[in-house]
């Protein structure tokens, strides 16, 4: 649990001198998201430790290799949570990997996503310099928002060393309800519920049941539960299983697609099974349909499809960007990593 910043910096400097690209790796729990790479591995997984945490500030700063479960344990002692419910596909999931992949869990429509809670970061840039952006305060508009730019960049812009995250108090009470509905009814109900200010923290549909998670003060949760009705599920681990893809839906062998659409979109007409999360905004689909068709379908709904897990190829694929946006990506990449040593091809094959 010691600070490895300088060792990591030295490895980056060496790589720069030898003109050798690096694959940055945390716990490896999300390695399936990107193509396998033949480059030298830069492991951040031992760069661990919570550096600063004052519960009344609602901010936690930790090294990138710190495991999410360790962070959650410390937060729980103070009655706080990571408000974006990051997936932990294994116990090894790290804070750095969470920020780099930018994935958020079922709570996302209600509290926000990873990037909404990133306040600052320290990183090694492509010149081998340790630089720090943002900070430990909630409002900070000094300089460009580099910290949020790191979210979802898959390590292509630098090696994350430390990250400051805004945290929130845990909800005093949580309740899980289910209602048996058709897919169409489920989407309509989600739409209706979203348009009211209700203490919700999850709205998902597994093909048969609409799952509602209520979170808030005791009185608000009971009043809402009475109003909405449905079957109460005590001691259910549905939400964790959904978050971590342990739910039986995710155990199928067909390629898994992650389709992000405007939440009020209709049922997606695609062969195979679907699980709806994010109050309608996220559709998990397992299908053997051709990739081009799925991508096209998502685009026709003003959404985007990402091949998330594909047993055969062992790698995911991101949606293609329009040329003007791809060109912006290349410019941004070049400004952080002029020699292109960080995670080539891990986000897009073009850089």
């Amino acid at each position, binding site marked *: 649990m010691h600070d490895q910043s300088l060792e990591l910096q030295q490895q980056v400097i060496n790589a720069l001198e030898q003109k050798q690209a690096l694959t940055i790796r945390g716990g490896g729990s999300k390695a399936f998201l990107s193509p396998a790479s033949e480059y030298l591995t830069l492991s951040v997984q031992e760069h661990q430790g919570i550096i600063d945490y004052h519960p009344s500030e609602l901010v936690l700063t930790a090294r990138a290799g710190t495991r999410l479960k360790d962070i959650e344990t410390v937060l729980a002692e103070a009655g706080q949570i990571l408000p974006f419910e990051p997936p932990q596909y294994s116990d090894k999931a790290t804070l750095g990997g969470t920020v780099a992949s930018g994935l958020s869990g079922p709570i996302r429509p209600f509290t926000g996503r990873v990037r909404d809670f990133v306040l600052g970061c320290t990183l090694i840039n492509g010149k081998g310099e340790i630089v720090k952006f943002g900070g430990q305060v909630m409002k900070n508009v000094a300089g460009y928002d580099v910290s949020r730019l790191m979210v979802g960049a898959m390590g292509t812009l630098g090696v994350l060393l430390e990250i400051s995250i805004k945290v929130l108090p845990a909800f005093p009470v949580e309740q899980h309800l289910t209602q048996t509905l058709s897919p169409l009814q489920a989407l309509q109900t989600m739409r209706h519920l979203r348009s009211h200010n209700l203490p919700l923290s999850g709205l998902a549909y597994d093909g048969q049941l609409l799952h509602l998670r209520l979170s808030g003060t005791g009185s*608000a949760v009971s009043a809402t539960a009475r109003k909405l009705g449905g079957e109460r599920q005590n001691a259910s681990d549905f939400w964790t299983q959904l978050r971590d893809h342990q739910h039986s839906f995710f155990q199928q062998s067909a390629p898994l697609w992650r389709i992000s659409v*405007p939440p009020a979109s209709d049922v997606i007409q695609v062969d195979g099974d679907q699980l709806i999360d994010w109050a309608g905004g996220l559709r998990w689909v397992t299908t053997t349909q051709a990739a081009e068709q799925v991508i096209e379908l998502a685009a026709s709904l003003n959404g985007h499809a990402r091949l998330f897990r594909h047993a055969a190829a062992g790698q995911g694929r991101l949606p293609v960007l329009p040329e003007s946006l791809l060109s*912006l990506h290349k410019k941004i990449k070049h400004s952080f990593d002029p020699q292109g040593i960080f995670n080539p091809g891990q986000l897009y094959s073009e850089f």
Partner: protein
Amino acid sequence: MDKKQLIAALHEILPEALILHSDEAQRPFECDALSAYQRLPLLTVLPDTIEQVQAVVRLCHHQQIPLVARGAGTGLSGGALPDNQGILMSLAKFNRILEVDLDNHCARVEPGVRNLAISEAVADQGFYYAPDPSSQIACTIGGNVAENAGGVHCLKYGLTVHNILGLKVITPEGDLVTLGGACYDSPGYDVLALMTGSEGLLGIIVEVTVKLLPQPERKQVILVAYDEVEKAADAVAKIIAAGIIPAGLEMMDKLAIQAAEDFCHPGYPVNAEAILLCEVDGQNEEVSERIMQLRDLLKPTQPIAFATADSEAQRQQFWAGRKAAFPAIGRLSPDYYCMDGTIPRRYLPQVLKDISALSSQFGLVVANVFHAGDGNLHPLILFDANQPGELQKAEQLGGKILELCLSVGGTITGEHGVGVEKINQMCSQFTTAELNQFHAIKEALDPAGILNPGKAIPTLHRCAELGAMHIHHGQLPHPELERF
């Protein structure tokens, strides 16, 4: 290209009525709300189509002409200050709400739409747009995005960056790029976050997709008064530590309380050293439970007064005093200078004490109004610009206050932006490598350096020259630079 040639080139792009070139016509554009800085642009244009914006940007890119975009000009850091060798582009004509999509909780609006107009347009349907900077009556959404504007409800609802879903941007080379949309996420780099708060240096915003929220069922505000500022600061920490995230949590010091009370009679206890305004919103039951909890929680903090607004009218009245604090304090003095540092909340008592010491040292009165919930301070330095040297003194004191914020791990600006105003303090907040990284981003996106030059990110030479004046602990900042 001289002015005449430029006008001719612009005539190819815009109708004559949309090009202003006389001093009189351009006078309204010479400054934003930081009126200590004024400058006339060479020319002002008021395009009303995206194609016109694009064509002007391309012209500027090819001819290397500085281009400053501007919304309503309510900014407090001089971000919209024109360049006297360049074009000022007002986006005032882009003032339409293009689409309201309540099913997907969003609206597509043009950049010149006023912040409050968005909430007003959807209020009947039970929705609103959350960020509420104090200028919300006048400020435009394009400017809000450029500055990443905040407001009094940031603690619970976030800044502009948390409340927009998509942008259409004209890049500094003239390309139209669409970022995000109605989905909860978008693939690739978060360019939308990079653009937000980039102060007009990285692109010109021509459309914004804002997030709309369902209005809370109920809002309730409590007013708590203390005889010591420290007690109020402790109360803030207690509220957060108890797991309560108020919709707004504001603090005012004695001078601000008295000024507000004199100005609009909100019913503040004028004998108090500090007051807190704490608003809770949500479901009816939740609000009741939280108010009870707050009452029990704050009893041991020894308030000298504790009041719950007994009607919507009184709730509005409690807020009216806070919202009018700046103009109220403005009446006490010919001029005031508003700072915007943010600090980790636990340093609040210490920083306030230090500000008070600096205030005595400089002989200038400082009133304090702040977003206590998120540690964002707005010290208002009172001065008289007609007294020789007072503006400079106020600026020096302001600089000291910002350095104080930095020394406890804070930032020089929480929501007003750097602009021209805080550009020197950027040298204190960032290292050479960090500033170089900012410049690298700028150069990558704007190779001709046309968009809002000289703002937000200081050149290294500027920092070096300043460094020669402010030597900390015997050590020069940015020691690797040559001094001349």
